[in-house]
């Protein structure tokens, strides 16, 4: 496929606001996880929480969109000079030629939870406006409105692969000529639905999550936002690029992955094919690596079945928690930071690798030149997406 240049990008999560906070944490092994202290939650678990969202209401022309999820999106957009980069892109392409592609799993559902908590005999409070908050499209409409764009837009919600799939969608819209450049991104925020929902499935860990570890016992839920500007490559570009993507369905079970990771393997194969690369060309795999028993086993089988047991791999969920609908963009941007800085990040909190899992898990951060990085994102419904990023186009 024609590579797309990723000319600007930014991310915000429990590690802090902006790229530098995440890069420093990946280098030094600092986790953003903390014991769960979210209001109205009494679960013994750890979370990856972004500080002070409660004190950042959206105001002025964006006030209608006010909810935790859109606050987090706004905080994310304000980092790393992303807004001036979008302004320059608007001057180059026009506001109607830049598409917006946002992934989210639960959007602003926390607002709906709050409306139900405060309901009375007359029903939910009149000021409840789910079209601006809870609705899946609230996230993409908010970003489009906030950035002053008026071209095509889409909100993708395929659980934990949502904000990986935005890269594939944006590539296709650009190739089809629907837009000339794209803002891709993802945002998901902490809410009771996912904390108690995953808890009901017995998938929430009471400790910091330990991907690929023999003692792993579930996920920590996190929140995050990330955005990237994708453009057709210009000669002399030195920025990293999207060079492959693969999308597949397990067609197996709603919440349990295929035991041999057949769907995951299919997504990775497609991504390699589009990138015209062999398995040996991949220098690092950022695993989906949620730290549940079945997810890691399934992904290990898929990765080792395709790549063997030599390719360096790690899950970065131990840094941020599982940011669900934002996991794709968060880990894609980790991949870009690793490419730019020659960093193999460790699988934080993996103490002793499960003997039945064979992937080559990186236990200590290493400096090494990287050319191609693959990032995996898999979601409920058996929805899989693998992306390959290159150091340059």
């Amino acid at each position: 496929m024609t590579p797309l240049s990723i000319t600007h990008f930014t991310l915000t999560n429990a590690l802090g606001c902006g790229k530098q906070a995440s890069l420093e944490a990946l280098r030094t092994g600092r986790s953003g996880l903390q014991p769960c202290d979210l209001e109205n939650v009494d679960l013994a678990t750890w979370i990856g929480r972004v500080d002070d969202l409660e004190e950042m209401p959206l105001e002025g022309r964006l006030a209608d969109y006010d909810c935790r999820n859109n606050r987090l999106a706004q905080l994310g957009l304000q980092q790393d000079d992303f807004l001036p980069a979008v302004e320059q892109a608007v001057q180059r392409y026009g506001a109607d030629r830049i598409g917006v592609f946002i992934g989210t799993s639960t959007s602003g559902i926390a607002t709906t939870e709050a409306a139900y908590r405060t309901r009375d005999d007359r029903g939910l409070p009149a000021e409840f406006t789910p079209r601006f908050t809870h609705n899946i499209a609230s996230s993409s409409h908010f970003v489009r409105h906030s950035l002053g764009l008026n071209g095509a837009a889409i909100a993708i919600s395929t659980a934990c692969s949502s904000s990986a799939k935005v890269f594939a969608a944006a590539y296709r819209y650009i190739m089809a000529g629907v837009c000339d450049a794209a803002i891709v991104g993802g945002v998901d925020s902490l809410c009771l639905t996912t904390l108690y929902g995953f808890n009901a499935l017995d998938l929430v860990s009471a400790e910091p999550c330990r991907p690929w570890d023999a003692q792993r016992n579930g996920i920590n839920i996190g929140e995050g936002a990330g955005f990237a500007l994708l453009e057709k490559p210009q000669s002399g570009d030195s920025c990293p690029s999207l060079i492959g993507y693969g999308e597949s369905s397990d067609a197996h079970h709603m919440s349990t992955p295929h035991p041999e990771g057949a769907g995951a393997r299919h997504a990775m194969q497609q991504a390699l094919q589009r990138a015209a690369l062999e398995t040996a060309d991949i220098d690092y795999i950022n695993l989906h690596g949620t730290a549940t028993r079945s997810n890691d086993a399934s992904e290990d089988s898929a990765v080792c079945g395709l790549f063997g047991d030599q390719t360096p791999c790690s899950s970065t969920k131990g840094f941020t928690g599982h940011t669900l609908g934002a996991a794709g963009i968060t880990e894609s941007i980790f991949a870009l930071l690793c490419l730019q800085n020659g960093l193999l990040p460790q699988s934080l909190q993996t103490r002793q690798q499960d003997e039945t899992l064979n992937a080559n898990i990186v236990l200590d951060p290493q400096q090494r030149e990287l050319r191609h990085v693959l990032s995996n994102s898999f979601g409920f419904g058996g929805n899989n997406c693998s992306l390959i990023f290159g150091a340059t186009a």
Partner: protein
Amino acid sequence: MISLSIEKIGVVAQGINNWPEASALLQGEDDYQGGELPPLKPSMLKPNERRRTTRTIKIALQAAEEALQGFTGSESLASVFSSSEGDLDIIDQICLALTEEGRPVSPTQFHNSVHNAPAGYWSIGAGARQGSSSLGGLNGSFAAGLMEAAVQSVVEQIPVLLVCYDQPPPELLKSFMPITEPFAVAMLLNGESDSPLARLNLNTRTDGSESQLSKPALEKLRQSAPSTRSLPMLQAIARHQSAEITLPYLPGLNLQVELQPC
């Protein structure tokens, strides 16, 4: 501009069991009379899976199943599922459970709460292992789904199943979400086709207002849900008429559909 074909259609609504019935209504002299929703029994699900599914999942699957009747190769189809609100019964039940002592959220309801639940059940039922995207776009959900499916079909050069569906909200959410009728429409789309029902050219435009239907009850149905915004297109196909149709898409942006019957 994106050009593609519609090969097959499935429709489920109150008083409308399938596309031939919808087509007869849209061609005929009479206005829409409403009626009962047909029993939702998509046969692609095994009985144990059907038990775990909801009226939202079932209406989506039933339309998909009709559109793919007689089609060989469902397992190789990519799919796009679009719905403004997803499964509001489940959202309602989870949000209620979260206000109760011990927060007794049902694990089955939680995994069915993901926006891509109908797509997941469809891929299991059809054995479809290709990519699948699930979207939401308020009243622009049909246009957003059509655009996404069209772009996938044209760029990847593959047939794509599009399903757009809604169920009216449960009591507590009723006054907050403008969906009054259950409706699902499915279309099999392909860039090139040997036996198309219609050819489409898609463009975005900032002016114009959304196409309406002349009969009052049908027009009321068109306004009853995001998925019913597909009715002007379905009417042109039913009547074998060329048409320029404007669909609501995004704030300040419409999707213009130039439709040629085949």
